């Protein structure tokens, strides 16, 4: 401590300024309002600026975005990082930025493409307020231009390696450049092997990935990175043999770190040869892709679960199919007998029966008929629920005609039809026909007993959709019931008044929504109802 104080006391403010300005790192000191207050020589050199022209000016006045680059984000990103620092009072490291620099006016004043790795750190006063921001940068233009695109990491590694091989044949200065480059490639373990697999060089990326420092690993055999199982199977030797035979080896597998933990590696091995083809050894580039593998496995797992669920659903559907088949077959058989023998009794012995007995038997018959209708409707509802509906082009006129065929002549005379010509919808024809049939049948049904039922069927195009409307002037539906009516077995009226099973509209709703369409109702008591089917136009 005493030494430090001594040392400090020896330095004058002038010394500090000199030290600061000559520090071999490019940085800039900003006030919280982003005025430049100090700058290192390295920064001036990197940005082709002079101290006297930038100090005391606002940062973004001095360094605007390149106006010729419409995608420039430098100012936005830097300003957001500085705001973060001011707000959090903590250091903020920015991702690599493209931030072009203007050449001095005497050199034409044009912008030069530059990539930077900036770090912004706050300098706090005694109260903890931000007094300055140190904006430190590293010019990574060269690295980026050598292909630092993340998406092409693999290709880049391979390209890099080719270059390494080429460069190996070149001069020392160039070698030095690539040594530096390799050392900065933090995401890759890049090392070389002697022809027998002994490790000959080791970059910081390798150190970080595998945990060994160069001193403890250089001279060892690379097989130690493999799992015990792979070593016994002779995988390391196989890798080198394959690389020799094919000029190249690419593969993935588990690798072991110094602390025995494992990671999933993507590896490229290439033999290194002299110009006269003598084997120098191998280069090995390893990337940790554990996360990618984990995601892939997760994806596979999800796909498997999905398949399982689909299989379960298919099974459920098959069960339902069997169930409704048996409902259709077995449940209706006794009904046929009830209705059949009651009818036979009435036919054969009706005259000998008291009137009350005949009435009772008549009721048995109508009840069994009603139950039969109910079962039939229920079956249809369940069929439409389960059915896989595929939509295709349907001629609306034809579909409506088909629906109207379900009505007798008398009923048809009460229906007015109004269809825009050449109207086509994306729909499932039988489902659409069914829906229109049910709506028309309801339209003619829900009238006061004394009234003359009538209905209108309209079809028109509205934008991207086809609207099919069925309108009546019957009893109408109170607002509060307008949702309920689309649910199965919901009935608003007594059986005496308006007989029915309460499934008709549920079938319409289910069918229309299965076709990706919508069903709506507009109605008020005494004012009639308009049901609208909306499906995509074709």
């Amino acid at each position: 401590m005493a030494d430090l104080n001594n040392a400090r006391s020896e330095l004058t403010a002038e010394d500090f300024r000199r030290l600061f300005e000559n520090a071999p790192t490019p940085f800039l000191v900003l006030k919280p309002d982003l005025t430049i207050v100090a700058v290192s020589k390295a920064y001036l050199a990197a940005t082709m600026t002079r101290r006297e022209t930038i100090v005391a000016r606002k940062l973004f006045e001095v360094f605007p975005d390149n106006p010729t680059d419409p995608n420039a984000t430098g100012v936005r990103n830097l300003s957001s990082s500085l705001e973060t620092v001011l707000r959090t009072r903590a250091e903020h490291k920015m991702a690599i930025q493209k931030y072009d620099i203007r050449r001095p006016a005497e050199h034409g004043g044009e912008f030069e493409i530059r990539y930077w790795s900036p770090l912004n750190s706050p300098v706090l006063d005694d109260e903890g307020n931000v007094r300055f921001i140190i904006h430190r940068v590293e010019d990574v233009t060269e690295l980026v231009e050598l292909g630092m695109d993340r998406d092409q990491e693999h290709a880049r590694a391979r390209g890099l390696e080719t270059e390494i091989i080429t460069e190996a044949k070149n001069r020392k200065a160039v070698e030095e450049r690539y040594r530096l480059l390799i050392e900065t490639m933090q995401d890759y373990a890049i090392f070389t092997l002697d022809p027998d697999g002994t490790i000959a060089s080791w970059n910081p990326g390798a150190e970080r990935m595998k945990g060994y420092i160069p001193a403890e690993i250089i001279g060892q055999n690379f097989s130690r990175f493999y799992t015990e199982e792979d070593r016994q199977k002779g995988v390391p030797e196989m890798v080198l043999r394959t690389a020799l035979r094919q000029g190249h080896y690419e593969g993935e597998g588990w690798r072991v770190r110094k602390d025995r933990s494992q990671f999933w590696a993507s590896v490229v091995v290439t033999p290194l040869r002299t110009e006269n083809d003598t084997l120098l050894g191998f280069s090995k580039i390893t990337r940790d892709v554990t996360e990618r593998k984990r995601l892939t496995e997760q994806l596979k797992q999800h796909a498997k679960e999905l398949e399982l669920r689909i299989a379960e659903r298919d099974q459920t559907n098959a069960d339902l199919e069997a169930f409704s088949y048996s409902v259709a077959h077995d449940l209706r058989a006794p009904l046929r007998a009830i209705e059949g023998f009651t009818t036979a009794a009435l036919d054969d012995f009706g005259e000998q029966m008291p009137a009350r007995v005949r009435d009772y038997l008549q009721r048995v018959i109508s009840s069994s008929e009603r139950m039969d209708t109910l079962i039939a409707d229920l079956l249809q509802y369940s069929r439409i629920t389960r059915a896989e509906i595929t939509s295709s082009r349907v001629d609306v006129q034809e579909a409506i005609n088909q629906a109207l065929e379900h009505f007798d002549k008398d009923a048809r005379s009460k229906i007015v039809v109004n269809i825009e010509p050449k109207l086509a919808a994306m729909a499932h024809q039988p489902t659409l026909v069914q829906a229109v049939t049910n709506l028309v049948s309801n339209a003619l049904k829900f009238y006061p007993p004394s009234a003359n039922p009538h209905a209108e069927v309209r079809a028109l195009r509205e934008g991207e959709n086809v609207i099919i409307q069925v309108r009546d002037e019957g009893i109408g539906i109170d607002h509060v019931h307008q949702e309920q009516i689309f649910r199965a077995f919901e009935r608003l009226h007594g059986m005496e008044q308006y007989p029915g099973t309460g499934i008709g509209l549920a079938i319409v709703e289910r069918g229309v929504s299965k076709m990706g369409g919508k069903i709506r109702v507009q109605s008020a008591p005494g004012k009639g109802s308009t049901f609208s089917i909306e499906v995509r136009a074709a």
Partner: protein
Amino acid sequence: MTESVNRIPTERMTVVLVEDDPNDAMLVRMAFERTAGEMGFVHLIDGDAAVTYLAREGPYEGRAQARTPMLMLLDIKLPRRSGFDVLKWARSQPAPICRLPILMLTSSAETADVNRAFDLGATAYIRKPSRTKLLSEMVSDLKNFWVKWTEAPEV
């Protein structure tokens, strides 16, 4: 114009019903008795019985030659040997068994069943009418069509 040689007097015609539900069978029989009483009516209770009957085996070894089965009404859902099995068997037999008109009479309305029936050589596919009135209509239409309009094969 000559009178068809294949026309058989109705009193020599027999309708064979293969139906496991005794109620259904009885209702169909009653409908036949009302509307086509002069025709013969044989009720067989399952698929095995249908096969032995057509093959003149077992209890049907000596069944009367006079009574020619003119058509068979065949249910699909039958114990052990299904209606489809009977149909398949009949169509694989030598003449005259393979010629017999076989009409499926079933409660199933599944398209798959209808298709399968015709694929296997069914003559027609009829859904069991759910009401007495309709059943009577069906029987009377059947009689009209088969007796009045069709030429029967030699069986």
